[in-house]
């Protein structure tokens, strides 16, 4: 066979009110088949209420090498958390 079937990433909403979550990938010729395959491969025991599939090639991911540059600066910005601020106990829950 000359050409391989493209890869799709599969996201499933497991329960009402939850976000779709990445569960794995499937090969399929198009999005319609990817949905069918995802249903057969990832929801054989009622794991899903809804499925998203998208071509893996359409995903732009951050490079793990950039991890520090991207995420480290927030470690010093503790004033973004509510616990940074002193509120007297008498004020009550806030």
């Amino acid at each position, binding site marked *: *066979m000359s*050409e*391989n*079937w493209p*890869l799709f*990433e599969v996201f499933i909403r497991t329960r009402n009110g939850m976000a779709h979550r*990445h569960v*794995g*990938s*499937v*090969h399929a*010729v*198009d999005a319609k*088949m990817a949905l069918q395959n995802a249903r*057969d*491969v990832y929801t*054989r*025991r009622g794991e899903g209420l809804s499925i998203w599939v998208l071509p*893996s*090639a359409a*995903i*732009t*991911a951050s*490079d*793990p090498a950039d991890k520090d540059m991207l995420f480290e600066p927030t470690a010093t910005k503790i004033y973004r958390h509510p616990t940074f601020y002193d509120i007297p106990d008498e004020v009550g829950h806030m």
Partner: protein
Amino acid sequence: MYTQALNNRETESPVSDPEREARFQARVDAEIKIEPNDWMPEAYRRTLIRQIAQHAHSEIVGMGPEGNWITRAPSLRRKAALLAKVQDEGGHGLYLYASAETLGVSREELVDQLLAGKAKYASIFNYPTLTWADIGTIGWLVDGAAIMNQIPLCRCSFGPYARAMIRICKEESFHQRQGYEIMLTLARGTVEQKAMAQDALNRWWWPVLMMFGPSDRDSQHTDLSMRWKIKRFTNDELRQKFVDATVPQAHFLGLEIPDRDLKFDDATGHWDFGAIDWAEFKRVIAGDGPCNRQRMAARRAAHQNGAWVREAALAYAQKSRRRAEAATAIAAE
């Protein structure tokens, strides 16, 4: 999330990189999962590809011996369960191929290696399923041994493999229970049925013990795999765990383990068992088991006979896309 683009890794020089390797090992030691786009030693990548592919091939080849009995299952309940089990094995193969693909190899390459006889799969699937009791024994012992092997793999250092194993272990638990239930029914049935169960146990017991791989003294891959936290227990440790768990289950069935040397050691709390015929193991792995040729012929036939379907599906998808694009172009004019 694994974009294929990022997985097109630059061909790395085989020169070792002690600094990166040390950093990698420190992460593994700290139980931080390694993800596909993280730097990893080439040998780690190769080991994982080999192991995950072997595992995936085993799931797919393993569909054969059991599929053999779907049409002859003794009741609708058994048929539905067996069908679901075989379907699960197919699903497990797919999860595993997908996790191997995150390491930069395609499923097609892996399948080609299997069909060319260049990749291994579990030796156990080269034994025949002669009676219905074999289906019970496979579920109880083969899946039982697989679970014993796979539970520690849920903590494997490579994220996608560990996550696939968590899913697989959850599903395998039904496989083992359905197998044991078949054995229990036979063991409580007629004299002939119980004899059939005993016969299946006699034939499968030793090959199942071989599933854990060569003894630690002869295992090539154990040391590095343990250091990289791909493996958590040695082959012999897992084999012992399996024997300890399984012997009482056999006794509950009223069946006898076909091993004259089997005895409980009060001092260690373990079941001691007899010598494994490693010559047989090597023969089966090397391709000369009872059904190796049959299994490979079945895989090759499935692959060849499905080729036109794969090609037609792709051609149809391309045609549909072209037509949709043309329709959009006309609508735009």
